[in-house]
């Protein structure tokens, strides 16, 4: 009985999600007809473009990697009812720290140096987000706003380092020097940029799932997320779970920046990671904050982005139509009344 109800709930949720995405696609098509002088061509590239060849397809999958990490980071935080809106700065700071560690150890073994660098990036993200969690625990400072503001300041300071002291003068790009060969991650789907960290990203999703659903910590985090007062009454140390989810969330954001450097960019380029933090929130929302849902949600999100980019390259629309379609998905995805309406409709039909 319980299982049957759970299956029904899942199906209703999946149906609701499908309707949401269908509405978003219809709006995308309407937008293209309004904005494009050659709508047929634009629609083709928007929907099919990312799938037309190995290079496009692999590159699309490559952009999934940081989204999985940031999406998981947001899912942990939101599941615990703490709000990390500082993803942008945490990703960017993580990528800078990874780059700096690699640049300062040019002759180290690739595995050791790469590990140290990623650990540093992870730590940078964890510290930044943890700070907001600490303020919240200690004095009740709203972590949603403080994490956003800290991230805003950090992004500008990272900009300073990339364009100032760390800028590579031999290159006209606003970027640091490239990290040494031995730190760069293995490409697994040539000629595209897809690298081995994609496997690592999927494994991380599994680890986060086990952490959240099969461990003591995960249980207590989820309980605090459901009802903090009730958890306190049940003897859970509630203040720990204001900081821990933020720290984990920040750590995953730092990793997202780190693997982007070692896998794709090999150097910290000014503002290269902008959007990864916000998109992580979108991914987590589409996945309903479920760690295993994050991977397909990230693929879907990357597909939308890649489609908009392909349409921009081959036709006459600008990339930002993706943002409009994404905002429509955002709007509808938590529209509970819509879901309820759909569920009733479905029952009436069946």
């Amino acid at each position, binding site marked *: 009985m319980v299982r049957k109800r759970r299956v029904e709930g899942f199906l209703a949720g999946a149906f609701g999600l499908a309707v949401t995405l269908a509405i978003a696609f219809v709006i995308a098509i309407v937008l293209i007809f309004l904005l494009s002088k050659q709508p047929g061509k634009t629609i083709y590239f928007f929907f099919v473009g990312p799938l037309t060849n190995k290079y496009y397809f692999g590159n699309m999958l490559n952009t999934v990697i940081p989204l999985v990490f940031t999406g998981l980071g947001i899912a942990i935080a939101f599941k615990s009812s703490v709000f990390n809106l500082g993803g942008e700065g945490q990703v960017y700071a993580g990528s800078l720290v990874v780059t700096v560690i690699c640049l300062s150890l040019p002759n180290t073994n690739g595995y050791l140096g790469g590990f140290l660098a990623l650990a540093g990036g992870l730590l940078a993200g964890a510290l930044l987000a943890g700070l907001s969690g600490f303020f919240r625990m200690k004095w009740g400072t709203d972590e949603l706003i403080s994490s956003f503001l800290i991230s805003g300041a950090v992004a500008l300071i990272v900009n300073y380092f990339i364009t100032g002291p760390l800028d590579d003068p031999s290159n006209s790009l606003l970027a640091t020097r490239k990290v040494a060969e031995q730190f760069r991650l293995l490409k697994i789907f040539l000629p595209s940029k897809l690298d081995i960290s994609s496997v690592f990203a999927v494994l991380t999703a599994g680890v986060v799932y086990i952490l959240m659903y099969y461990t003591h910590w995960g249980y207590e985090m989820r309980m605090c997320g459901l009802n903090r007062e009730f958890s306190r009454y049940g003897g859970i140390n509630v203040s720990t779970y204001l900081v821990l989810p933020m720290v984990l969330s920040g750590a995953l954001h730092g990793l997202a920046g780190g693997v982007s450097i070692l896998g794709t960019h090999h150097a910290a380029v000014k503002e290269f990671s902008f959007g990864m933090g916000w998109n992580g929130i979108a991914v987590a929302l589409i996945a309903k904050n479920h760690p295993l849902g994050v991977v397909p949600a990230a693929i879907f999100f990357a597909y939308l982005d890649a489609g908009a980019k392909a349409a921009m390259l081959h036709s006459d*629309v600008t990339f930002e139509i993706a943002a409009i379609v994404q905002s429509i998905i955002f709007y509808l995805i938590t529209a509970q009344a819509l879901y309820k309406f759909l569920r009733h409709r479905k029952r009436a039909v069946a």
Partner: protein
Amino acid sequence: MSQSSFTFPLIHNSIGIMTPFLLAAIGGLFTELTGMLNIALEGLMLIGAFFSVVFAALTGSLMLGILLGILATMLIAALFASISLYLKANIFISGLATNLLASGLTIVLAFQLFGNKGVIRFENLPKLPVLSIPALDRIPLLGDLFLGHNVLVYISWLCVILAAVVIYRTPFGLRIRGTGLGSATIASLGLNPVGYQFKAILISGFTCGLAGAVLTLKLGAFVPNITSGRGWIALVVIYLGNKTPLGIVIAAFVFGFAESFSNYAQGAINIPADFILAFPYMITVLAMVGYSIWRHYKARA
């Protein structure tokens, strides 16, 4: 800016700079009082910024530009409100969606209308009228504070006074406050709390539209994402202002002063520009944390 004719240009500029914060925060106060965290202030301001300057350039009239800009912002606010209140979406997420929509929509429209995604200059835009009484400008402090500003600055003050009267002296304001304190109470009186929340979001759309107009009409140009976090700072201003109109005026002035100071420092002291740009964010975080520490110990005592 006419720095030379004023005794304290730093203070004079603060008044101009604080205006968008003040306007967005005073509208956000209404939504805050009805118990909603309105993070869409940023996006609404951006919509106002874009449409007011575009309509002003198209019609050649500042007045029409501002009015149509406000109208466009209120339309988006109505969309945001309908989805949050009637489709019962999580207001935090629909707020994020509104910000994303505003950023995407303004850039797409800019590209469509002007074929350009960068800075769009409007050459023959009428200038915002400035209240100038040269004889009185030089009065120390009073001249700096009250004279030589553009007309939107004075309109913002009018909005604050109007908001204070509405919130504390009218049945509508009482019900707005009541909705936040306990929507069940309002419902038990036969009133519709969701209706008040809807109106509060529309009011925030009105003031954010005006706040956006201040940004672009003063500059005579539209820059993608010109609001650059001002809506978020306006949210902090509401908290630091203790959710009262007077408190908001003071808090907005502090931020106006911080930004005015960092503009000044950019010219006078040799600090990298990025650090100076980061300064308002850092001040805001410090103020927020300081305020929560103060409140924490006050609650204990």
